[in-house]
């Protein structure tokens, strides 16, 4: 019935059918649901939704309505959706963007329109440093964090001749820079590959020839799957250990890589086995609701929702005073599934960072196991550039 009503309304104005549930606080989620990276957005959304469902359609006791749309990983599409959320739906809180390039196209404009944006994943350095903004909060990390923790771990473990691989695009260079910030040894080689590259045979042969003592790679999504499978087929994993940030080792991706990832140590701010009450409840509920183990993206979506809940509760669902909402968010008065969590001066997390190892669990499933906490209360390198 609702559907046919909306179809009717489409004839005149495309969106006329949407003005329902007037009182609920609307939260706009621009995320990536299609393309090869669609599962990342799906997990952010599902984690976020779980928090809403746990409260029966509310966050912090305030009724909310979550609007989700797919940016198809295209910056201009993301921008179009954000505009619709702001202009048509009057959204004041936004979240959800997966990729830094989409974020850089969408977020600055959104912030200028007096909308609060809470990042549940992408956190490019510009938004942490000179372009930081009172309306912008990163609930996930700063992009380089997960590389920094690996850099420290690799140094501590005594490796001193590492080979670096990343795609040839700005994020690739940022991630390697993050690693190098804490890695103290020599660099055997540094290779930038084509974005979206499928075959790494040529790079692997060159890598073998330079005889490094370890490899650090940042190859998100399918590129990472390809790399790990081919690395293991070349039997390089038997002699040269691989390290990387968590982006190539989330639970759903590990299921696709299989045994080829076993033993790899990777950096993350969260793992499903972290021992705190909020996390245990989250992981149990997520598994019950969706039938799979949550990824770090899901944990970030969930934490974002819980943070919003704490702020909504504090202002009693009243978003008219933006300053009050910002102040409430800044307190980070919620139980993060990561344990200790607070915001630094640039409104990016100050949190513990871990390395974890890919292992086989009792049921024979390939999964992550927390190995050790490397940083306690770690911030980011750009906070000093932020004048807020």
């Amino acid at each position, binding site marked *: 019935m609702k559907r046919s009503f909306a179809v009717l309304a489409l004839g005149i*104005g*495309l969106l*006329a059918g949407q003005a329902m549930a007037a009182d609920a606080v609307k939260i706009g989620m621009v995320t990536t649901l299609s393309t090869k990276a669609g599962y990342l957005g799906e997990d952010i959304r599902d984690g976020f939704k779980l928090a809403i469902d746990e409260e029966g359609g509310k966050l912090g006791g305030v009724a909310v309505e979550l609007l989700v749309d797919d940016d198809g990983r295209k910056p201009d599409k993301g921008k179009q959706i954000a505009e*619709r959320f702001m202009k048509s739906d009057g959204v004041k809180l936004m979240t959800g963007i997966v990729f830094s*390039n989409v974020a850089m196209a969408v977020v600055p404009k959104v912030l200028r329109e007096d909308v609060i944006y809470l990042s549940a994943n992408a956190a490019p350095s510009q938004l942490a440093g000179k372009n930081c903004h009172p309306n912008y909060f990163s609930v996930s990390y700063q992009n380089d964090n997960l590389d920094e923790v690996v850099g420290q771990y690799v140094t501590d473990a005594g490796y001193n001749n590492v080979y670096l691989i990343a795609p040839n695009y*700005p994020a690739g260079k940022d991630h390697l820079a993050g690693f190098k910030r804490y890695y103290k040894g020599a660099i055997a080689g540094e290779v930038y590959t084509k974005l979206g590259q499928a075959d790494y045979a040529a790079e692997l042969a060159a890598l073998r020839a330079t005889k490094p003592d370890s490899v650090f790679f940042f190859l998100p999504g399918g590129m990472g799957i390809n790399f790990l499978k081919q690395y293991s087929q070349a039997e390089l994993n038997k002699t040269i250990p691989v390290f990387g940030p968590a982006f190539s080792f989330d639970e759903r991706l590990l299921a696709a890589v299989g045994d080829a990832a076993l033993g790899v140590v990777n950096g993350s701010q969260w793992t499903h086995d972290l021992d705190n009450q909020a996390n245990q409840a989250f992981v149990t509920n997520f598994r019950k609701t969706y039938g799979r183990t949550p990824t770090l993206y899901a944990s970030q979506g969930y934490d974002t929702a819980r943070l919003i809940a704490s702020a909504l509760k504090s202002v009693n669902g009243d978003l008219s005073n933006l300053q009050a909402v910002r102040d409430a968010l800044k307190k980070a008065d919620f139980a993060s599934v990561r344990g200790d969590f607070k915001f630094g001066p640039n409104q990016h997390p100050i949190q513990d960072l871990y390395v974890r190892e890919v292992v086989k669990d009792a049921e024979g499933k390939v999964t992550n196991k927390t190995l050790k906490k490397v940083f306690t209360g770690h911030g980011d390198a750009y906070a000093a550039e932020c004048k807020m």
Partner: protein
Amino acid sequence: MEAEGTVSGAGLIAMQNFLTRKIAVLSTCLILLLALPVIMQLLDEPYLISLSSRILIYAIAAVSLYLILGYGGMVSLGHAAFFGTGAYVVGILASASFDASPVFSWPFQMDGSERLLVALPLALLISAFAALIIGFFSLRTSGMYFIMITLAFAQMLYYFYVSLEGYGGDDGLSLYSRSQLPLLDLGDDTHFYYLCLTFLLLFLLFCHRLVNSRFGRVIQGIRENEKRMQSLGYAVFGYKLACFVIAGAGAGLAGALMANQSEFVSPGLMHWTQSGEILVMVLLGGMGTLFGPVLGAVALLSMEEILSMFTEHWMVYLGPFLILVVLFTRGGLYGLLIGRER
């Protein structure tokens, strides 16, 4: 396939009916387009004004592709190269102006600018130049080979912009605001909408005059029979290249507007999937008239928007819809709306 056919006596009444229908449909569309911002304000949906600007811009790009595809028989899968080039000209000029540093200082100093009257002509010029180079090499081939060689050049440009680290590489370049123009505030969506509409109408008028000129007839003659035109003494290559360059400039115009509409440019604008999308707009709209591509752009983009409101899996519906259009409407959407001309 072609509008300008001779009409036999028997078909005269049918032709008249057809013309009335065509005029009725087109004038309704024009009135709707002119009144759209007012209607949207009344409906309290200002967002749709900005969406409509986006559609109009894609319509310009689709019309420019149709110029070479429909009239010249040159199917290009690299048209986004010129679209993206136009956008980057605006983006680079604006970012240089924002940083108060010259774009380049040798052999002469080129300063950045946020003025549309500077950026737009430059965007047209540079995309036309890009089309001249690419066309010069590509037009040696035809058919499927032409499709692929234009794609190759567009992909080269794509990777070139990906490697432009000074301008954001793959992340692209955010504009601080839209360009400036005397009398109009382009930051205002209604003003910007009318600017896009004006450009679309002007461009359609230009193309209409062009295809009905001697130049246009030669181009169509070449499409029908290249060898014959050659033996009649026409410089076939030159005509095709000129047409390709004009189309490139048209796409550059669309790109420059697009950079302003989204206040953002990135290499994604010239990826082959973008070329494919513009091509699909042209094909969906239907061949035979300049309004086909406009219709195609409107249909494809609004279907994406509407379907994605109902389902995340909108592509599973859009795909078969495209197939049905091919199988059952023979003239594309334009044929469905107005009827076949022959």
